[in-house]
């Protein structure tokens, strides 16, 4: 048994130092307030700054594995992720999930037209998967693509598309083939400036606007924009969604544990610090244990991935574990504040400028997004344990 991830060797100190100097000189000041989760700028000005930031990173010679044909030096990748991650500012603009799909299934033309520009911040992408009537049951999506010569004519509606309001391109799933379910779905590259596309920003319960609805009215897409082959869209999307589910929420829960410990120490009830209250100590420690176990579960999944032995329950398990722990912790974070929990961001009386209030609301996204936890439990029991599948109501 060996889980040591080797330390970054000293010869990378120089690389790190020059990266730090680069960050100090170029990292943009944003209007945007740091919040939990996957958030999207509300000001065009911030979007322009983020594009410049991605460009600057690229021009300085830093290359991320997700955009490279062959993986780079693993230590350099680690240092890049550590240092750029520490800024709290996104270093990849938009939803870059499509990069993996294009690398795995795309044509050489598609690769050269998109991978480079994405890495330079020239192309912001959005994912056009979910629909109002195809959320958990994504394979039932109804957006149509009708073949007309060498073009598909797209009609329908998508929802929950992050970055769509700023996107240049869309990673679209549409039904182009006569068969129902997964077999009829094709993955397409969509130019978001095409005529017939309407984007309506969707304001969420957090009050911020991180998602959009996207409507298609006879939008024309060249057949050459198909990723993979017609009817292979489910395979293409599953490959990229699997990476998203596996990656959701890593390392986020420990930060919240630390926030709860801080909150308990600085909050009193009946003249006693909550940090000295036995029930509070027990509860926070229980969260801490679950957060540590999240790390360990991640290492088990990583081991199975390295041995090509990934199970059907790995990604759903990680998603359920993190999202439910996260939600419970944030609910508790408000409970600990007592009456003070009713004031939020912008009020001078708010604890930590309402970070936990916003995070509490946003926590509801993680238990739903990327496949609701109910669907995750179906996946575990049906594909993992081989129990009978839920019957379709329309079969």
């Amino acid at each position, binding site marked *: *048994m*060996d*889980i040591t*991830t080797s330390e970054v060797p000293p010869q990378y100190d120089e690389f790190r130092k020059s990266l730090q100097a680069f960050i100090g000189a170029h990292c943009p000041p944003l209007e945007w307030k740091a919040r939990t989760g996957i958030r999207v700028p509300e000001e065009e000005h911030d979007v322009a700054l983020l594009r410049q930031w991605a460009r600057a990173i690229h021009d300085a010679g830093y290359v991320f594995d997700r955009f490279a044909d062959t993986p780079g030096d693993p230590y350099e990748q680690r240092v890049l992720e550590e240092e750029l991650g520490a800024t709290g500012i996104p270093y990849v603009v938009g939803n870059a999930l499509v990069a993996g799909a294009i690398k795995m299934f795309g044509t050489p033309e598609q690769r050269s037209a998109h991978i480079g520009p994405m890495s330079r911040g020239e192309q912001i992408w959005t994912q056009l998967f979910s629909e109002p009537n195809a959320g958990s049951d994504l394979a039932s999506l109804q957006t149509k693509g009708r073949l007309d010569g060498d073009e598909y004519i797209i009609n329908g509606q998508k929802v929950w598309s992050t970055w769509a309001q700023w996107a240049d391109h869309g990673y679209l799933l549409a039904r182009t083939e006569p068969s129902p379910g997964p077999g009829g779905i094709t993955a397409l590259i969509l130019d978001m400036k095409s005529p017939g596309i309407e984007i309506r920003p969707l304001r969420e319960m957090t009050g911020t606007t991180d998602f959009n609805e996207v409507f298609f009215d006879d939008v024309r897409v060249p057949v050459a924009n198909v990723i993979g082959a017609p009817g292979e869209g489910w395979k293409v999307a599953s490959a990229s969604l699997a990476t998203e589910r596996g990656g959701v929420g890593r390392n986020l829960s420990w930060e919240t*544990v*630390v926030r709860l*410990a*801080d909150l308990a*120490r*600085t909050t009193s009830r009946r003249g006693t610090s909550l*940090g000295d209250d*036995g029930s509070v*100590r*027990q509860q*926070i*420690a*229980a969260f*801490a*244990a*679950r957060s*540590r*176990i999240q790390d*360990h*579960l991640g*290492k*088990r999944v*990583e*081991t199975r991935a*390295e*041995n090509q032995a990934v199970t059907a*329950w790995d990604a*759903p*398990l990680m998603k*359920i*574990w993190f999202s439910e722990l996260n939600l419970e912790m944030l609910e508790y974070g408000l409970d600990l504040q007592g009456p003070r929990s009713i004031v939020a961001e912008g009020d001078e009386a708010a604890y930590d400028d309402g970070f936990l209030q916003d995070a509490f609301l946003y926590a509801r996204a993680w238990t739903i997004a990327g496949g609701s936890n*109910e669907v*995750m*439990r*179906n996946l*575990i*029991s*049906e594909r*993992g*344990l*081989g*129990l*009978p599948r*839920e019957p379709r109501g329309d079969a």
Partner: protein
Amino acid sequence: MNFDFDDDQQLLRESVRRFLDERYPLSVTREALEADVVLDRELWRRGAELGWTAMLIPEQHEGGSITSQPLVDLVVLAEELGRTLNPGPLVSTNVVADAIARFGLDEQRSTWLPRIARGEVIATWSLSAEGTPDLEAPGVDAVVSEGGVTLNGTARYVHEAVGAELVLATVRLDGKAACVLVPLPHDGVRVRRHTGLDLTRRFGEITFTGATVPADSVLGGAEVLERAISVATVIKSAEATGAAEILFERTVDYLRDRVQFGRTIGSYQAIKHRLADLLIEVEAMRTATYYAALAVDEGFEDAAEAVATAGSYVPEAFAHLTGESLQLHGGIGFTWEHDVHLFVRRSKSDEPLFGEPSWHRENLFEMLDAATLGESA
């Protein structure tokens, strides 16, 4: 990255499982559920030949581990023994073997370790009269006397107390913790068997009334106790994980077969979702246990935290899982004939032993508090 067992450890698992399946399955233990003695000493000795009590003993004293990570090796054994709800004192005997190997004198090592490794001697481990590791609890007091060290007081909830040939007693000496070896039987020591909730194990009470042992029987103080709790937590967690795993498998099998209202009850979403949660729980128990074993073996900086994590999470998850399993079995689960109650009994009586979950959580909070105090300032 290989957060899994090596090939040699897999072989160990196979050989132990084969032995247990053929010679010492749960059905054998079932025959002695209501007897005074449940542990079959001859089978225990045979198990010792497979290394059950030898992993933490140096080779020169007839021990030896499979790999350079003896606690990880022990996890494999403990999971397998846990699957059969084996009655043996795997935790206590290994704790005592480890304490003698690490902290004992040469003479104590050569006297006891080969006999423990061979399974001839059952060594057990006692805490306070409340079964807890804290010094504030009433328990056994020791004073330095003319003949060495003299013990007075009672220790309870001691595994295999009746029948053990050796006890490592946790005592208070000069207001501090001390761990003292006492051979059994011994003048001034009485042993009484508890009537227990867990029918697959026997616990007992040890009363010391002026029992005097040589001064060098004191192996040490807090450092011995701390190490003992780490070792115990890892083994206990691994036994729990193995037991949880087999009960979960049996539960899924049952729900796949049982038909009501014209369909297998495992096809109902209300049931499937509960099983999904139990699968997650078993995975979490495993990873918490494996990580604790590895962290203690390798002396990771977060070893104490890993022990507290496993010690607080695993026993509660185990008890939750057995309760869910019983409920999902329905009426058959409430019968004496079905094994599920043995797992319920095991998990519930496992929970408070060798440091209860709330005790580990308090330790965890103290570590978290100390580690994060600086970050917030």
